[in-house]
């Protein structure tokens, strides 16, 4: 197997006596779409926060492209190619969709201390931004203030912003959360197109989407990794069925 792009070693995060992620070890190989599933409260979002650098980890280490990034702040992780989306949509509502993405382009183009020149009219920022919007199918809505987009469109915008940082690895925190059926099909379609070009860690509740997209699936229960395997074998895994899938079936 190839050298992993992202490797988690014994990551742990606790709030007082409440252990949210416990001894999580995981490796993500380049180019794969790695889904992390688990019941509510399993610690999935906390794990994403730890990987992206929003939350410090208590113990353990995170290796990205072979480099130990455990103590790097979020912006520096982003610059190394580790981007994320948010579960609760986190965009700049007053900025147009294009500007939201153009800012991400600007972030990696370096020179953000320019005090002159109208940023909104810079072609070398707007063109790549437009390209990212097209990839998620939002090009037609580029000039709409992001706050006025529909919920599904905001989810797509999140994705476009993540893409604009030119990541090696994209962490997606429930990109389908709260989307309608049509919208969710569109996001799944976009993810399918991105798959292979980009390494993706996907956290998702929609099992249908997960099993359709993922190369490998890790199951997180009570902060621990129960199993990591191909979708097919995860489906068959008795522990997983007992801890998680069975529960779903009961509902």
């Amino acid at each position, binding site marked *: 197997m190839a050298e992993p792009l992202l490797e988690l070693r014994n990551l742990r995060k606790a709030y007082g006596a409440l252990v949210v992620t416990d001894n999580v070890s995981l490796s993500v190989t380049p180019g794969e779409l790695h889904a992390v599933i688990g019941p509510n409260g399993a610690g999935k979002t906390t794990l994403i926060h730890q990987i992206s650098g929003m939350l410090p980890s208590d113990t353990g280490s995170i290796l990205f492209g072979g480099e130990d990034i455990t103590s790097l*702040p979020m912006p520096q992780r982003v610059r190394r190619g580790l981007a994320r989306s948010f579960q609760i949509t986190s*965009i700049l509502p007053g900025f147009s969709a294009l500007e939201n993405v153009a800012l991400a382009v600007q972030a990696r183009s370096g020179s953000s201390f320019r*005090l002159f020149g109208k940023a909104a009219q810079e072609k070398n920022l707007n063109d790549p931004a437009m390209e990212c919007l097209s990839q998620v199918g939002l090009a037609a809505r580029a000039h709409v203030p992001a706050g006025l987009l529909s919920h599904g469109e905001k989810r797509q915008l999140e994705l476009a912003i993540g893409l604009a940082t030119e990541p090696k690895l994209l962490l997606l925190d429930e990109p389908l959360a709260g989307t309608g059926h049509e919208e969710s099909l569109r996001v799944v379609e976009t993810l399918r197109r991105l798959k292979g070009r980009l390494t993706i860690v996907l956290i998702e509740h929609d099992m249908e989407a997960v099993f359709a997209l993922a190369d490998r699936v890790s199951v997180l229960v009570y902060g621990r990794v129960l199993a990591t395997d191909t979708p097919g074998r995860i489906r068959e895994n008795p522990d997983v069925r007992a801890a998680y899938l069975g529960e779903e079936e009961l509902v």
Partner: protein
Amino acid sequence: MTELVQTEPSPAPSLGTRVEIVPIFLFAAFAAAPLLATVSGAEGYVLSLLTRVMIFGIAAMALDLILGYGALVSFGHAAFLGLGGYAVGILASHGIDDALVQVPVALAASALFALVTGAISLRTKGVYFIMITLAFGQMLYFLATSLAAYGGDDGMTLPSRSLVAGFSVLKSDFTFYWICLLCLLGTYAFSRAVVASRFGRVLRGTRDNATRMEAIGFRPFRFQLTAYVISGMMTGLAGCLLANQAEFVSPAFMTWQRSGELIFMVVLGGLGSLHGAIIGAAAFLLLEEFLPEILHAASFFLSDEVRDHLAENWKMVFGPLLILVVLFARGGIMGLLRRPRHG
């Protein structure tokens, strides 16, 4: 905090152009005012009042740059007025009375103070930031009161207005007025450019959602600190002008009430439009100037004694007015100009 300001150009172009008329009209009014002042007969009074308006306009606009575009509530901005003023005063008292030396020194001092206090204050968030900037402002105030050699509590009178390259051009109130207008126009144009630039866009983005900005690779601290330094320097420039206008500097330049008034000006005019801050400064100073008379006139039905008492205590009206603006007129004057009146 996300709803703090609405700065983005509205999609409807008619509104956008209508707002652009305001700054043009504003500067035209400032340019025409000296002519009217000559006609009015009370030329000295009108000129000095309007000069003050422009100077405070620069300071308020500088504050708007970080408050309206960066959501940084600095409650110690009067300190920079004091720094500018004292740079002029202290240098003048040592015989260095040329603005070409004084202004760079004032700007450098403001930048340094902003850099040091900003670096500490910006490590904190929200309400801590407000209190810490307040405390740093107060620190400078007490320093000024204890400078016995430079007048202490009482402040110091300048021997004369600053020279410019050896010439005493500022002596004439008219020339000084034009210089102030030039400074106002210059800082306005500069601020407009900054706000629209790459830098300004990051600053605005940070105001709306700092976490998002970090998640795309920006470190907000650096941008906020740079903006704080720029704003401090612009306010320092206003301090230089203010000292020259009054031909006097004192710790009163930098009381924390003065810092509060600067915020009031920005909010009164409307956050995050730059010219709104100038309008706010004008509204504030004109109100301060004429409220006693307005009160006196409006209370014609009361006895003379009560009317005098009322006019004397005009500040009692000022406070509630501020509360009303906060509670009911969030967008300030620019907000009223921007949106059509309801009902």
